[in-house]
């Protein structure tokens, strides 16, 4: 054995060095945080995710804090997670994700959010299976899957659509009519033609196609761009409206097709009713987004059922306005929230979801998260970030924690 001392020594060195590092050395001192309920119903804080950075020593580490605890991205990052999370986050929202959890095989191959309609009763998915030729408008074949969550029965049929096979942006069911909102993007055209393909679910045939917005050409340096706002409603009664946004923008530098910088000239929202087919403009107020934005002011919108909500917020206050698409009733800046109401010093971030406003606030000590219902401004939940292990407070300083944004777990609000 004496002869083999070199190999044995190197072998031991190899094993000891690496194992000591990974079992002892790699314990860093990044503190573990947790969101704790102070007031209100704990289940409201269930899906809250606060994210930001914690500046330990040399550089700050990105982390996310939830009820369960905190997760440092840098520490968790590895090849497997990198590949799995390669799927764009805006493909999958929380509702679709939870549905996939329950019915993995039903949703197989059908995991692109905008093409799905989910509620307690059913899951409907529309997808082009044969786009014949996108350029010559000869239409294509849509495959519609209708899955009844109650009975577990699945129906799938194909319908021939004689209209341009555009990209599917939203799926809505009103009675026996399935409305599939599509975009027709022509090359170098910034504003798309938006149209609604209606399919009769009982006859399983194409019924008609209604136009929601024209695809406007560029004129000089000014161009139009348009988009639709998907409804967050999950269990609300079916909403007959869809929101269309049409902007006018001016090219400041660069050119369309390459990368370019543009400035917003005007923005106008329209509410289109699937039932009546009318397209009514919302008050101009909601369109003047550039007035909402400055280096300290931000805004956030949400379409929930028939309610279109807008919050303008900065460090000092968050002002909410709502417009009811069906009753055309408007409540402009009817709610103003200030940090002091929650014992905080400033507002960091605010989002609106399901007719509730979620606020992330900074205090002299640990940051605070609040949930307020927009109907009646009742405080539903107030939670604060604490150290999971109290003794961490000795070595770490809470002011190193800089939270940036508040979110509903898995659900990314784009807007």
């Amino acid at each position, binding site marked *: 054995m004496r*002869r*083999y001392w*070199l*190999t044995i020594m*190197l*072998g031991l*060195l*190899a*094993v*000891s*060095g*690496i194992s*000591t*590092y*990974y079992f002892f*050395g*790699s314990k*860093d*001192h990044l503190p573990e945080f947790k969101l704790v309920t102070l007031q209100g119903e704990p289940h409201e804080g269930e899906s809250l995710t606060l994210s930001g950075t914690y*500046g*330990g*020593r*040399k*550089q*700050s580490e990105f982390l996310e804090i939830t009820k369960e605890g905190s997760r440092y991205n*840098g*520490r*968790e*990052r*590895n*090849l*497997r997670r990198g*590949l*799995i*999370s*390669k*799927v*764009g986050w805006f*493909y999958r929202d929380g509702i679709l994700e939870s549905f*996939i959890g329950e019915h*993995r095989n039903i949703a*197989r*191959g*059908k*995991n*692109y959010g905008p*093409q799905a309609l989910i509620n307690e009763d059913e899951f409907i998915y529309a*997808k082009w299976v044969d786009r014949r030729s996108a350029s010559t408008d000869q239409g294509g074949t849509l495959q519609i899957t209708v899955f009844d969550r109650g009975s577990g029965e699945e129906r799938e049929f194909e319908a021939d659509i004689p209209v341009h096979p555009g990209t599917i942006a939203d799926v809505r069911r009103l009675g026996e009519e399935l409305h599939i909102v599509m975009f027709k993007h022509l090359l170098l055209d910034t504003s798309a033609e938006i149209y609604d393909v209606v399919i009769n679910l009982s006859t399983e045939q194409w019924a008609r196609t209604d136009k929601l917005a024209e695809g406007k050409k560029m004129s000089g340096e000014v161009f139009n761009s348009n988009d639709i706002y998907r409804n967050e409603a999950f269990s609300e009664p079916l909403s007959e409206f869809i929101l269309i946004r049409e902007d006018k923008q001016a090219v400041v530098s660069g050119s369309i097709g390459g990368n370019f910088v543009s400035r917003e000239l005007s923005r106008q929202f329209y509410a289109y009713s699937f039932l009546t087919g009318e397209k009514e403009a919302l008050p101009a107020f909601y369109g003047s987004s550039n007035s909402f934005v400055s280096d300290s002011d931000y805004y956030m919108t949400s379409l929930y059922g028939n309610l279109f909500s807008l919050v303008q917020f900065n460090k000092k206050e968050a002002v909410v306005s709502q417009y009811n698409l069906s009753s055309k009733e408007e409540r402009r800046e009817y709610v103003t929230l200030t940090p002091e109401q929650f014992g905080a010093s400033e507002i960091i971030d605010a989002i609106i979801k399901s007719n509730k406003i979620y606020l992330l606030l900074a205090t002299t000590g640990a940051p605070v998260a609040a949930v307020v219902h927009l109907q009646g401004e009742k405080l539903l939940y107030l939670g604060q970030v604490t150290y999971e292990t109290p003794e961490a407070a000795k070595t770490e300083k809470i002011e*190193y924690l800089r939270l940036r944004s508040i979110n509903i777990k898995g659900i990314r609000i784009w807007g």
Partner: protein
Amino acid sequence: MKRYLKLVHMEVHRFRYLMLFLMGVILIFQVGAIISVLSRELSQRWDDPTYNGVRSPFVPEGMLSFTWVISNTNFWFAVPMLISVAVIGLYVFFVWYREWLGRSTFIYRLLMLPGARCQIYLAKLTAILIFVFSLVSYQLLLLPLQKLLFQMMVPAEWRVDSYWPEVIHANRALDLLIPRNIEQFLSIYGLGIMAVLIIFTGILLERSYRRIGILYGLLYVVGNAIVALYLPDLLGLGLPGTYLYPDEIVGLVVGVCLLLLVLSVVFGFRLLANKITV
């Protein structure tokens, strides 16, 4: 089994001077870098007390941390690591070709050893792994000593403590070679081992079919690399509407990689047993 261990020892024994050289280079470069950075910083402090020192966030004004030292010696700290990676990378080829080169043609004796020839393949692989992991461990064991050196050079009142993951994260090369979580460590070195095995089999292909073998070997290595790299995209990872879910795709890719790995090893054994030529 005993014969395999003896073969491993022989391979390690033949690498001993190179290992000594690498360890020496790592020690000298890194200690040199640390001393030069620290002495420059300290001399600035001695000269004009008003110099308020390092401005880095979260570190109390004017204090020095070992993490800061490592992040400022970035290049010279990484050079010896790059040298080691290059040397070991070349040695993956040389560990085989030395048997055919020069007057010795030791391959005759190796092929005439009683007992399965796969032991030669495994012994050379084990040796490479021992070299890689002992160098990584050596680097890991060197860091505390370098911290000691830091503590000796910098007076206590200017020092602030630092944590190992941050120290390692401060240097790009260290961060790559010593990932923060064990799973990433296994993934990185797992892929490394797979690459070595594929190269081994490529070499044996060349050694079995000589001139045409070079083509076979290259095709084999490139083929495997393409499969391993493009399989995720091939299976539609990240595309909307793909049939397989991301975790299923990743599982499949890992499965295929393991399969490629096993195939390479078995193919290598078969080449060694039947097709290799002196």
